[in-house]
C-alpha cells in the first residue's frame, strides 16, 4: 500500500491560524470559566508543595498544558503517513498559550475595572489577588501570559520528545500530584502500617509536600518509571492477547487479588478511609443492580433510587423501636427477608405499567416513579407510618452475635457491604451466562425480534427490574443500619443519576467496569453527600461529574473498563478491520466472503 506523507509546513510560522485561534480562545475560555466558578481561589488553601504551589494554581496551570497538547495533535488521515513533529508544533503550543494567557489578563483588567459580583459570585478582589499574586496588575498579566505560553509549549512538546521522556515525566508529575492530593488517605494508610514517620517525612506539617521531599520522591518515581517503562504496557497487552481459558484464569487471579485486598486492607485503615470504602461499597451495590437493568437488559431506569428507599424504609420500620406505627423490632437478618419481598413487590408494581414503554419513554416514566416513591414517604398521608419528613430514627445496628455493625464502626459496615457486593457480583456473573441473561441481551439488541424468537419480553424485563430492585434494596437496608436513621431526603433523584453515571463511566455491562467506576466516582470524587478522597473538590463535584461524563461520551463511550461486547459494538469498524487483518480473509473460504465488507453492513443496520 502506498502512503503519502502529509504536506510539510514550509516554516514554523506557516501555521493553521484558524486552528491556533480556536484552541487559544478555548484555552482562554476554560481558564476564565474556571476562575469564575471559583475553583482556584477555593483550592488555594490546599498546599501541594509547601509554600511554593497550591492546588488552586495547579488547577489553573494544568489547563494550558492539556490544551497545548491537544492543539498540537496531528490529524492523521488514513493513507497518509504522519509527518515528524518538531518546532512547528512547539510554535503552535506557544501561540495557544499566549492567547490563553492573554484572555486571562483581560479577565484581570475586567476584574480591576468593573464590579460584576452581583451575577458572578466569584468576581472578587480575592480572585484578583490570586491572579496577580498580590504583585500588581502588570506583573500578574505578564506572568500569566508567559507561564501559559511556556506550559502550553510543554504540552505541545509532549508530541515532540521521545516517548520515554514523555512517559517518565508524565508519571512523575502525576504521581507527585496524586501523592499530594491524596495526603489524607496516604497518612491514614501509613498510620495503619505503622509507617507514620515516613508520612511525616514526606508531608509538611501544614499539609502539602515539602520541597525536598518533592525532589527526592520525584527522583525515585522517575527512576522506577525508567526501569519499568514498557513493562506495564507489555503485561496489559499480554493479558489482552490471552484468550478463552487462559484469560479466564488470569481474570480469576486478578479477582482473587482484589478480593484479598478488600478483606485485608480495611484492617490497616483508619476510620475515615473505612467510612469512604463503605460508601463506595454502598454505591457499588446500587450500581451492580442498575448494571443488570441498564447494561444487560437495556432498560434505562432513572427512578432506581425508589428501590433504594424501599429497602431503607423496610429495614427502618421493622428494626427500629422508634417506628411510628408498627415497630416489631426484628433482627436485621429477618428484616432482610422482608426487604427482598417488598423490593420484589414494588419492583413488580412499578415495573408492570412502565415495562411496555421503550427507550426514552421508559426513562421519563421511571424518573417520575422514583420521585413519587420519595414524595410518598414524605407525605402527610403516609406520615403516621413512615414518619414523614422526620423520618425514622434510632435504627439499631446489625447484631451478628460476635460483633455489631453500626455507623460508629465503619470497618464492620464495610465488611457487611462487601458481603452484599459479593452476592451482587455473583448474581450478575451467573445471570449473564444463563438463559435469562441471553434473553435480556436479545431484548437489548432488538426487542421486536426477541419477541418473535419466542421470548416473553414482558416477563423477562420484569425479572430484570426485580433483580435490580432487590440489589438496590439491600443497599438501602445497609445504609439505614449504618446511618441509624432514614429520611426521605436521603433518596433524592440525584442518586439515581449518579448511579447511572457510575455505570456509564465505569463501563456498562461489565462488572469490573462498574467496580472501577464506583471507586473513581464515589471513592475519589465523593458521593452526593459522602466526601471522597478529593475532599477539596466537594463543591465542584457535580461540575466534575458533568465534565467527566461529556468527556467519556466523546472519547471513550464504552467506559473506563469496557465489556468486550460493548467496545466491539461502539467500534465496529475498527473491529471488522482487525478481524480482516488477522487473516480471516475472504477467499480463504471458497467463494464466500466471510468477513463482511463495510458496505454490506449498511443494509442491515436500522
Amino acid at each position, binding site marked *: 500500500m502506498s502512503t503519502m506523507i502529509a504536506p510539510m509546513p514550509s516554516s514554523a510560522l506557516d501555521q493553521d491560524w484558524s486552528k491556533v485561534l480556536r484552541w487559544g480562545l478555548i484555552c482562554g475560555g476554560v481558564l476564565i470559566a474556571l476562575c469564575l466558578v471559583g475553583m482556584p481561589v477555593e483550592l488555594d488553601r490546599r498546599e501541594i508543595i509547601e509554600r511554593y504551589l497550591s492546588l488552586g494554581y495547579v488547577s489553573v496551570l494544568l489547563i494550558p498544558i492539556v490544551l497545548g497538547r491537544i492543539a498540537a495533535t496531528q490529524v492523521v488521515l488514513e493513507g497518509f503517513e504522519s509527518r515528524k513533529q518538531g518546532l512547528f508544533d512547539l510554535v503552535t503550543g506557544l501561540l495557544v498559550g499566549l492567547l490563553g494567557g492573554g484572555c486571562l489578563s483581560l479577565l484581570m483588567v475586567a476584574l480591576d475595572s468593573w464590579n460584576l459580583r452581583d451575577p458572578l459570585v466569584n468576581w472578587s478582589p480575592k480572585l484578583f489577588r490570586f491572579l496577580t499574586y498580590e504583585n500588581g496588575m502588570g506583573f500578574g498579566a505578564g506572568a500569566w501570559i508567559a507561564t501559559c505560553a511556556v506550559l502550553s509549549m510543554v504540552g505541545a512538546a509532549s508530541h515532540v520528545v521521545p516517548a520515554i521522556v514523555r512517559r517518565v515525566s508524565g508519571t512523575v508529575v502525576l504521581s507527585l500530584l496524586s501523592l499530594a492530593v491524596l495526603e489524607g488517605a496516604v497518612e491514614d494508610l501509613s498510620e495503619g502500617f505503622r509507617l507514620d514517620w515516613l508520612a511525616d517525612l514526606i508531608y509538611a506539617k501544614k499539609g502539602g509536600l515539602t520541597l525536598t521531599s518533592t525532589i527526592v520522591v520525584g527522583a525515585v518515581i522517575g527512576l522506577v518509571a525508567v526501569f519499568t517503562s514498557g513493562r506495564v504496557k507489555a503485561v496489559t497487552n499480554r493479558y489482552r492477547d490471552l484468550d478463552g481459558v487462559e484469560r479466564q484464569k488470569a481474570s480469576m487471579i486478578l479477582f482473587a487479588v482484589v478480593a484479598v485486598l478488600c478483606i485485608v486492607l480495611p484492617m490497616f485503615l483508619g476510620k475515615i478511609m473505612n467510612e469512604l470504602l463503605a460508601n463506595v461499597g454502598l454505591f457499588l451495590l446500587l450500581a451492580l443492580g442498575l448494571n443488570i437493568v441498564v447494561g444487560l437488559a437495556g432498560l434505562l431506569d432513572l427512578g432506581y433510587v425508589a428501590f433504594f428507599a424501599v429497602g431503607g424504609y423496610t429495614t427502618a420500620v421493622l428494626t427500629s423501636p422508634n417506628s411510628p406505627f408498627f415497630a416489631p423490632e426484628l433482627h436485621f437478618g429477618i428484616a432482610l427477608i422482608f426487604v427482598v419481598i417488598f423490593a420484589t413487590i414494588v419492583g413488580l408494581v412499578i415495573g408492570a405499567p412502565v415495562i411496555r414503554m421503550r427507550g426514552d419513554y421508559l426513562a421519563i416514566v421511571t424518573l417520575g416513579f422514583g420521585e413519587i416513591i420519595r414524595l410518598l414517604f414524605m407525605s402527610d398521608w403516609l406520615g403516621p407510618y413512615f414518619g414523614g419528613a422526620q423520618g425514622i430514627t434510632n435504627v439499631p445496628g446489625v447484631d451478628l452475635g460476635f460483633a455489631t455493625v453500626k455507623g460508629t464502626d465503619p470497618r464492620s459496615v464495610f465488611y457487611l457491604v462487601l458481603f452484599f457486593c459479593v452476592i451482587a457480583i455473583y448474581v450478575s456473573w451467573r445471570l449473564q451466562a444463563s438463559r435469562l441473561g441471553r434473553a435480556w441481551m436479545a431484548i437489548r439488541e432488538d426487542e421486536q425480534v426477541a419477541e418473535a424468537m419466542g421470548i416473553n419480553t414482558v416477563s423477562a424485563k420484569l425479572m430484570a427490574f426485580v433483580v435490580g430492585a432487590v440489589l438496590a434494596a439491600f443497599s438501602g437496608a445497609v445504609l439505614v443500619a449504618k446511618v441509624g436513621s432514614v429520611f426521605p431526603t436521603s433518596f433524592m433523584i440525584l442518586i439515581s443519576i449518579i448511579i447511572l453515571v457510575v455505570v456509564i463511566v465505569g463501563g456498562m455491562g461489565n462488572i469490573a467496569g462498574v467496580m472501577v467506576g464506583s471507586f473513581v466516582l464515589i471513592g475519589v470524587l465523593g458521593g452526593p453527600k459522602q466526601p471522597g478522597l478529593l475532599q477539596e473538590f466537594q463543591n465542584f463535584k457535580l461540575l466534575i461529574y458533568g465534565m467527566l461524563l461529556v468527556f467519556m461520551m466523546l472519547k471513550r463511550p464504552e467506559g473506563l473498563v469496557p465489556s468486550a461486547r460493548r467496545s466491539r459494538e461502539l467500534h465496529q469498524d475498527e473491529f471488522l478491520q482487525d*478481524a480482516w487483518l488477522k487473516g480471516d480473509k475472504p477467499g480463504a473460504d471458497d467463494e464466500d466472503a466471510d468477513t463482511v465488507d463495510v458496505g454490506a453492513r449498511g443494509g442491515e443496520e436500522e
Partner: protein
Amino acid sequence: MSLLEIKDLKITFGGLDALSGLNFHIDEGEIVSVIGPNGAGKTTFFNAISGLVAPTEGDIEFEGDSILGLDPSTVTSLGIARTFQNVRLFPNMTVLENVMVAQHCRTSQLIYGALLQTKAFKREEREIRERAEEVLAFFGHRLVGYRMDQPAFVLSYANRRRLEVARAMATQPRLLLLDEPVAGMNPIETAELTALIGRLRSEWGFTIVMIEHDMKVVRDVSDRVVVLDHGIPIAQGSYDEVSTDPNVIEAYLGRPVEANG
C-alpha cells in the same frame, strides 16, 4: 386437517388494504411459496401469522386453533418460527448465542437455577448448547468453529441469512416462515441454500412457507405456489400452472399492449 388455515384474512393500514380476503391452507410437510410483485402483501401476511400485526378481519388457525391476538412469543412457542426479509440478527451477540437464545421458549430455567447452578440448570445449559451446535452444523462449515464465538455483525451477508434460518430452526418449530431466504446471495450460494431448504423438510420435518423472488428457487423447492397481487390471491397451484397463468403474467409484466388499445 391442515397445519395452517387462513380464513378471509384482511388487513387494512389506514385506507390501504394490505391483504383483502386471503383464503388458503398449508398442509403438514408442504413447501409453499408465496410470490407476487412488490407491495403485494407478502411480508404483511407473514407478520400477521407471527403475531406482529393484528388482522382487521378473518382468522388464522394453527393446528385447528385460532392464533389471533396471541403475542408473537406465544405464537413462536406454539411452533411457528420466521426469518426476516431485512436480516435482523442480534448483532452484538455471538453466533452461538444467537442460536442459543432462540431456544428460550423451549427451556425453562430461571433465576434460581442459574444462581444455585442446579443439576437441572447445568443439564439444560448443556442441551441448549448442543442443540445450537447441531443446528449450526446443518450449514456445513459456514457457521461452526471459530465463527461460533464471533459477534453476528462480523458475518458476511450470506452467512447472516444462514444464521437467521438457524435461529428460526432453533425455536423447534413445526412451521417455518422464510422471508426471502436467498435475497442478495450469489448463484452458488443460492443453489446451496435451495438444497438446504429441501433438507429442512426431509431431515428436520418442517413445513415451510417461503416468500421468494428468485423463480428458479421457487420452481426447485415448492410443492405449491400462491401468487398475491395487491393483497388478493390471484393464482394458486403448481409452479408450472402458475407460471403460465395469464393473470400472473399480467401482474408481473402488465397488460399486453393490444389489450390496452
